């Protein structure tokens, strides 16, 4: 379902920066991130812990936890800027226009209220429906997300549902007001593998039927490969590569994406060893100059040490790597050039 290119994007994120002021200086956790999501498109955002993928999602739904704050850039939903809206304004958009699904279904539901009450409350907050109609809609939503015996289950409390069923309820909550965009942050990570497959299939079907766009934040490349139309790979707060999912998975352009793909055990031919990227992602306080990946990169040159690459065209994708620039990576690193 690649989105038509002539449509205006549903969501535009331009040069987004998220920072955390700390006693020891300001940490830049999301650094100059830009991407679009077209109506009905599923954009996967993948990266390892600390890459800034969840923060990007939280910035979009306006739920950054203080002291984290948006320090620059713009977020536009259907052409309207939403990153600088007052809290009450944003509250109306969140839920009505943007739905959210979080990792842990137990903490995103209130344990003291029945599932039906939470659904009805959300529906009535965003749509002006009488109580009986709202309840009917809640039952319909529960049926739609595949909860057996919805009429009965609507009066149950979250603890009476299993993990998979709870996540279905959370998806129903996110769909309440018919949002155009759903930000799903690790929606399947807390679930067992067989339940995970069910939830992915459900999300895919619902988004196709409702033409809802999804920003799918996850660390699981398998989930992305199955679900997303396009994927953005994040590393140390920046987008390292973005492109159609097939191209990124099969023909990765950025050395980090290549390493990441190689390090996932697959069911194809069995190899003795997995490709491994040595080292670890730098802490926010220790992000190196130039390309943030340069200390772990096997093909870096002198230019990578000093100059930061922007996203540039690379095959069918765009990658932030000097190898795709006409100038290349510069001289190879030798002892002399480092000392110079």
């Amino acid at each position, binding site marked *: 379902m690649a989105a038509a290119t002539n449509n205006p994007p549903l969501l535009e994120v331009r040069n987004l920066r998220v920072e955390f002021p700390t006693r020891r200086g300001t940490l830049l956790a999301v650094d100059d991130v830009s991407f679009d999501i077209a109506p009905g498109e599923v954009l996967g955002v993948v990266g390892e812990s600390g890459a800034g993928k969840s923060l990007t999602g939280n910035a979009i739904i306006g739920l950054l936890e203080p002291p984290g704050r948006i320090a620059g850039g713009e977020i536009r939903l259907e052409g309207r800027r939403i990153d600088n809206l007052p809290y009450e304004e944003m509250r109306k958009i969140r839920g009505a226009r943007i739905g959210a699904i979080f990792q842990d279904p137990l903490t995103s539901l209130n344990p003291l209220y029945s599932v039906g009450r939470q659904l009805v409350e959300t529906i009535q907050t965003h749509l002006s429906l009488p109580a009986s109609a709202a309840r009917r809609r809640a039952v319909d939503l529960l049926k739609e997300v595949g909860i057996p015996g919805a009429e009965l289950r609507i009066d149950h409390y979250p603890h009476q549902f299993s993990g998979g069923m709870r996540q279905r309820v959370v998806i129903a909550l996110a769909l309440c007001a018919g949002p155009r965009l759903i930000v799903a942050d690790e929606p399947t990570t807390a679930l067992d593998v067989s339940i995970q497959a069910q939830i992915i299939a459900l999300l895919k079907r619902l988004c196709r039927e409702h033409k809802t766009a999804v920003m799918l934040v996850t660390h699981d490349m398998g989930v992305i490969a199955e679900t997303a139309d396009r994927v953005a790979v994040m590393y140390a707060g920046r987008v390292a590569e973005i492109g159609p999912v*097939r191209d990124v*998975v099969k023909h990765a352009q950025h050395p980090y994406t290549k390493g990441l793909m190689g390090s996932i055990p697959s*069911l194809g031919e069995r190899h003795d060893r997995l490709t491994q990227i040595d080292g670890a992602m730098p802490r926010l306080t220790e992000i190196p100059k130039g390309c943030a990946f340069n200390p772990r990169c096997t093909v870096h040159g002198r230019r990578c040490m000093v100059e930061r690459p922007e996203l540039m065209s690379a095959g069918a994708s765009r990658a932030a790597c000097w190898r795709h620039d006409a100038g290349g990576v510069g001289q190879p690193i030798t002892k002399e050039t480092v000392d110079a």
Partner: protein
Amino acid sequence: MPDGGQNLFVQIEGLKRYFDVSPPWLVRALEGKPRQIVQAVDGIDIEIAKGETFSLVGESGCGKSTVARLVVGLYPPTDGRIEFDGNDMASRRGRAETAALKRRMQMIFQDPYASLNPRWRVFDIIAEPIRAFSLAKDRADLERQVGDLLRQVRLTPADGRKYPHEFSGGQRQRISIARALASQPEFLVCDEPTSALDVSVQAQILNLMVDLQRRLQLTYLFISHNLAVVYHISTRVGVMYLGRLVEVAPTDTLFRRPKHPYTRMLLDTIPDLDMTGRQRSPVAGEVPSPINPPSGCTFHPRCPYATDRCKVERPKALPIEGGTVACHAIEEGRLGIEDRSY
């Protein structure tokens, strides 16, 4: 049985472990409720050969971690026996003899944030097994051994002075591995050792484990829910469902010619990363509660091939193609076996 029992190293027979999860006596008496027993492990047989990696896979609550804990002796079994290199673990023996046996098996835990004491320096964490089993002659020997262990897991001896919080998740798991290797064991029980780690770090740890196995001739019992990881690392695989082993087979056979319907279902849940367009049949249902497991074959409520026999009679593990499978449909020939490719 692996290679005709020549190198049989660990043998588990009819292993059971039940947990009593009943409410307190008074509550039971007032509400007239019976005791509630979780049958976490309900009669499993495993044979592990020296030098191989035997993996247990299954979804949460299937009892795979309980098996790991039973094997190293963290829980006593309710029934059944565990034999380690010809020694019955349950038989009474002197303190020195027990210690000599325990030294030879160690465990690596899932969460490297919870399994290292935050108040201890890394040096002391790794030195503890050496001290406990009196394996060092003097302080200098102890320091040399800890330094070697740290180097073996690609850390430096200087890291020994630090505390666990100064390390990342992957480095902490390296420390756990160094600690497990400190007593020079032959058998390592690894309970989801990479589940808490990012994929690139997971690759580092898996590679390290393969290298160490080769260098030190280790035998692994590897517990994981991640089928791709299991495929990568194992010699043989056992699939668990609700406390029972439903299928055991050499890795390639299990993934290329799966037999038990549950194994097939699990394989269908692996995301298609190679984007071959492989068709996945959606998996229906959820794992039932182990408190009141279904009768007969515990998988029958979710099984598309279940018959009346499956509902009443527990299937026995029957040998087939170098492994075993516990399924009436396979036994009766109702369910064909097909080759799979990925």
